[in-house]
């Protein structure tokens, strides 16, 4: 099997409302940044392009098609799109490269969630007969999940606040974060409930932005002569869309994907986890089998800024940057999609 290298990554700042910026203008700076990291001039210099986005976020039908205007598709490109987080665009590109259909790929994800009412928009992903007509929003679903964990005694509200506190503290070193600061558990617990048992801090903010990445075979990365991290494992698993058919206090799909990606075949020093709600980080940390020695979400994670459709790819990008910078030798990145951690992807990155 062909070894794969992550060679470039760029992410925009997470902002609550990016204002007068369209899809193209959102994506373009990140594409230019990853081209510059590798020394490419355009998407014509890679073999395959794949993006992740969701038109319902900004309410613009076929917005992802407009995204192609950022690429320069003359002559035409080999292009694909997933209507989900760009971490799954990465997965598609990895398959493409491993099967010998490409040596390199450009990936990007973007989301402008500010124009809509994100939790309500996402409610329409649910079962169209039984749940979507109730407009059961994502924050409410996460709150039902948190209650089950609290009732089971496996977490406390203080544990949830501790996740938020660490996110905000870590985000102080992340200039792209939307929420950062030195705030302790006691102060967080004094906040009113947003949607009991969740407080506002337990929920990722809504952010606008984009991220891009370039991957290639290790041979191609060496030809380009750029620092890289090896992507040694990647796997993704999905569970029932019906939250009532799952054990919401665990993430079986994450556990399976982690085993298949080889997370524990060697020691880890960093983990970037896509947990849009504080209690979900605890579920995922347990499902991934991470111990205390591993730095979890040193970027602050998505509780500090959540780029819908790009945050999953950004988790991989965060681990890549830490490895290339020499801050870590081996790390795990996780992405999620769907209500209450329905669908999970796990990737393992190692130093060259």
């Amino acid at each position, binding site marked *: 099997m062909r070894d794969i290298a992550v060679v470039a990554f760029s992410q925009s700042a997470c902002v609550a409302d990016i204002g*007068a910026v*369209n899809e193209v203008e959102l994506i*373009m700076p990140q594409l230019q940044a990853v081209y510059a990291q590798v020394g490419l001039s355009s998407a014509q210099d890679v073999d395959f392009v794949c993006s992740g986005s969701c038109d319902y976020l900004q*309410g613009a039908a076929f917005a992802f098609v407009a995204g192609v*205007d950022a690429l*320069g598709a003359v002559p035409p490109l080999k292009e694909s799109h997933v209507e989900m987080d760009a971490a799954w665009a990465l997965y598609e590109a990895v398959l493409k490269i491993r099967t010998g259909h490409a040596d390199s790929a450009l990936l990007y994800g973007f989301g402008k969630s500010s*124009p*809509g009412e994100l939790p309500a928009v996402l409610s329409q992903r649910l079962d169209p007969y039984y749940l979507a007509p109730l407009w059961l929003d994502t924050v409410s679903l996460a709150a039902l999940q948190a209650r089950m964990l609290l009732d089971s005694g496996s977490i406390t509200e203080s544990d949830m606040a501790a996740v938020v506190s660490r996110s905000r503290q870590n985000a102080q070193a992340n200039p792209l974060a939307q929420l950062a600061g030195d705030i302790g558990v006691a102060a967080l617990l004094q906040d009113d409930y947003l949607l009991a048992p969740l407080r506002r801090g337990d929920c990722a903010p809504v952010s606008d932005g984009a991220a891009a990445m370039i991957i290639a075979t290790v041979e191609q990365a060496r030809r380009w002569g750029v620092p890289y991290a090896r992507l040694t494992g990647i796997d993704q698993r999905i569970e029932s869309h019906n939250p009532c058919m799952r054990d919401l206090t665990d993430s079986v799909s994450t556990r399976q994907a982690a085993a298949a990606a080889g997370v524990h075949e060697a020691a880890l020093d960093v983990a970037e986890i896509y947990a849009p709600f504080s209690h979900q980080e605890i579920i995922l940390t347990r499902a991934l089998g991470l111990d205390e020695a591993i730095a979890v979400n040193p970027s602050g994670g998505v509780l500090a800024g959540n780029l819908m459709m790009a945050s999953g790819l950004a988790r991989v990008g965060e681990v890549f940057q830490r490895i290339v910078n020499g801050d870590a030798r081996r790390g795990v990145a996780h992405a999620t999609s769907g209500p209450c951690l329905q669908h999970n992807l796990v990737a393992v990155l190692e130093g060259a």
Partner: protein
Amino acid sequence: MSTARPDVTGIEAPVYLHYHFTAGTAPARFLVRLREGLLSGQRCPRCAKVYIPARGSCPACGVPTTEEVLLPDRGTVQSFTIVHIPIPGNPIEPPYVVANIVLDGANISFIHLLSDCVNEAVRIGQRVEAVWRPPEEWDYAMDNIRHFRPLDEPDVPVERIGTLPVSGPAVPR
């Protein structure tokens, strides 16, 4: 059976989502100029092609575009169709002509109405100019131009459509 009503075989599943749309930087510039009675495009820094309306990139080269190019309101029919069927929500009475029009100095067409013409005489290469609404009616909208109408000028050969230079000053009408 407690009821004689037929079994349920379908449901109404309406979905209404509400958004607060904000135009991007490039489209906003196009619309602000349009409100001033001006047609504003952008030139690609790499291939020099001029796009109107611009999205902020050259879709051919994949590079950002920032240079503004003001264009005259005269152009050439690149393609057209004669609409004979009523379109729901469209107040215009058929038959009418919808044309792809390339402004002089632009390298890409946009779609607009072609009127004040003999429909059967409309042809590719035909020269046209904008008929503007009165300035007091101008908004951030393409229908500040009521329609295009034929110009009494020689047709443009097909191979030259979309390659003409700017033909005159861009001035508010």
